[in-house]
């Protein structure tokens, strides 16, 4: 293992030793996770699952714990008009939060539930299990439509690098419905290493829209595990705009017939940003559908990664799986890495995947220019249209509009985002 990455792991293990007696929950689970993390260390590009995403920059920083008390109310910035649950530096802030009546909320600090997320072979999950000191657990009872709730995470500028590892759970009982709009923002240098376990009961529907606009110096690591029972739907969308390095990893398992999973997303990156979307969809029951459309717009020296695996078990006949990764490269120095994987053990399935990488369509560009629109403006229109298409499938209008505004704000921060595109393999 690379010594730098090893050193980063040792720093986390040392901090764990100092904290372990004060951390909530089952000490044996923590100890086992620490042992697993000690063995693997932080992931390196030699691990197949991390081939395109290096944590070297993260490993070089020694992260401390955030302050326990938040002095002043942080700038929450607008999200959308819905009840809001606020976390600051990974810790729940009851005074800043409103919880809808239809949701039962508890915190990991008060009721630590580790769930079933695997610590072995998943070092960032093991690190979370080892260090987690808070998180949000949301439960919606059978048949209840709990509406929309915003989960807002703020990383404060602590003037020193801090790490927080929230442990979240979402449980929808049979027939329940919920829309979660997660927004992650912050300032300064921090590591936000969350694990989220999601249980969607029979016939339940969870829509999960995420806007990641963390500090440009932040590291954003999210590992989600979703289990979807018979006729349940997990409809997820992530928009990656912020952070220096981001990885959104989702493992979705369809455990009962007629369940559906949508893992859609878009990344809009510039500068030296690195955005990784990794998905694993496991079809463990017949007649289930999964849909994944990921769009990347990459400028400057940014790098986008999409790794998507679809596993179809022998029993999962009539599976309908679809995966598409599209990238627009707006600079000769931008890069996209795409790794689709299909593992199919059933014989009566429909699974397709595809990837497109390229520049703007020359005929569309000419059409706009022939109507009098100057070339730069025409390029910008087509890039925005490419992203707009990605946002189209978001059913929740308020959430979609929030993401559209975030994309517009991203463009507004840049001058002319679209110069000299080129083709890439």
């Amino acid at each position: 293992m690379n010594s730098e990455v090893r050193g980063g792991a040792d720093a986390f293990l040392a901090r764990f030793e100092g904290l372990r007696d004060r951390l909530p929950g089952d000490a044996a689970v923590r100890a086992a996770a620490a042992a697993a993390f000690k063995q693997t260390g932080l992931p390196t590009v030699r691990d197949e699952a991390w081939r395109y995403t290096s944590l070297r920059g993260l490993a070089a920083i020694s992260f401390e714990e955030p302050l326990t008390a938040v002095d002043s109310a942080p700038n929450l910035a607008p999200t959308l008009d819905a009840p809001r649950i606020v976390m600051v530096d990974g810790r729940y802030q009851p005074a800043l939060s409103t919880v809808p009546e239809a949701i039962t909320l508890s915190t990991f600090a008060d009721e630590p539930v580790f769930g079933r997320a695997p610590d072995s072979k998943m070092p960032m999950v093991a690190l979370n299990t080892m260090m987690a000191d808070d998180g949000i657990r949301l439960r919606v009872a059978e048949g209840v439509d709990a509406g929309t709730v915003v989960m807002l995470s703020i990383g404060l500028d602590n003037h020193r690098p801090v790490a927080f590892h929230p442990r979240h759970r979402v449980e929808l009982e049979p027939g329940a419905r919920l829309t979660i709009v997660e927004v992650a923002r912050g300032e300064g240098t921090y590591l936000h290493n969350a694990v989220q376990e999601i249980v969607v009961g029979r016939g339940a529907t969870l829509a999960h829209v995420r806007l990641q606009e963390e500090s440009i110096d932040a590291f954003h690591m999210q590992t989600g595990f979703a289990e979807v029972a018979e006729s349940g739907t997990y409809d997820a969308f992530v928009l990656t705009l912020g952070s220096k390095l981001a990885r959104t990893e989702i493992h979705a398992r369809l455990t009962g017939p007629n369940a559906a999973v949508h893992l859609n997303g878009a990344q809009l990156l510039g500068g030296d940003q690195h955005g990784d979307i990794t998905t694993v969809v496991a079809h463990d029951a017949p007649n289930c559908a999964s849909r994944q459309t990921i769009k990347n717009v990459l400028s400057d020296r940014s790098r986008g990664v999409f790794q998507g695996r679809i596993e179809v078990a022998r029993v999962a006949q009539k599976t309908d799986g679809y995966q598409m990764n599209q990238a627009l490269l707006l600079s000769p120095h931008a890069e996209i890495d795409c790794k689709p994987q299909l593992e199919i053990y059933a014989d009566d399935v429909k699974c397709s995947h595809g990837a497109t990488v390229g520049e703007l369509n020359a005929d569309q560009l000419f059409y706009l220019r022939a109507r009098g629109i100057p070339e730069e403006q025409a390029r910008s229109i087509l890039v925005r249209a490419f992203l707009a298409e990605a946002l189209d499938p978001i059913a929740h209008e308020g959430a979609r509009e929030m993401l559209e505004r975030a994309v517009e704000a991203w463009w507004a921060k840049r001058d002319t985002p679209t110069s000299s595109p080129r083709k890439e393999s």
Partner: protein
Amino acid sequence: MLRIHALCASVEEKPILRGIDLELPAGQVHAIMGPNGSGKSTLGYVLAGNDGYAVTGGEVTFDGQNLLEMEPEERAAAGLFLAFQAPLELPGVNNANFLRTALNAVRRARGEDELDAPSFLRLARSESKRLQFPDDMLKRNVNVGFSGGEKKRNEVLQMAILRPKLAVLDETDSGLDIDALRVVADGVNALRRPEFSALVITHHQRLLDHLVPDRVHVLSKGRIVRSGGPELARELEANGYSQVVADAA
């Protein structure tokens, strides 16, 4: 208005236009007819400035300006409009926003004030009504899910809003039923003014029944082989191109 002299152009090194001469005075409508592959659409694209077509010789002046040196958007601002034979679909681009962006880009380039959203919408609604568009066409994405006829009508709507001096209609009649054909022809006729000219590229005479040309030119193998009055279109319809092309050879 438009003067084309000895225009030659090729696509991927293959010569398509082999010396076109054409003079289109202000206020006139000329038709370009000819068999498939004669270079009709290439002429439209070259005039609009598509860089997929290389101009290898000749000159084109538009209102006294050297057209071939101008960018496509400069040509549009100067008043040239190409109605595409196959209008492009623009997923994710709203039709009304597209029209307004185009109109304001052209107005800016012409030194005119931009139209605000309400004034633009009033204009767009009244023009669409005149062209018998369903209301939702302005709200939809540009040409996405439009039928062939709707796409052609959308071209005419763009033209009506941009108010060009010179319209080049590239087979705007193809794929239209009789009613749609009349709507399209009426849309063009509504623009006819002493300072408006049109170059109507078509293979069939039927559009010319509604949009009567001052002159008809027959294009074959990249050259104009015959020119005449509106009766030439009827002759072509009756006898086919082969006789005219053979006579010219």
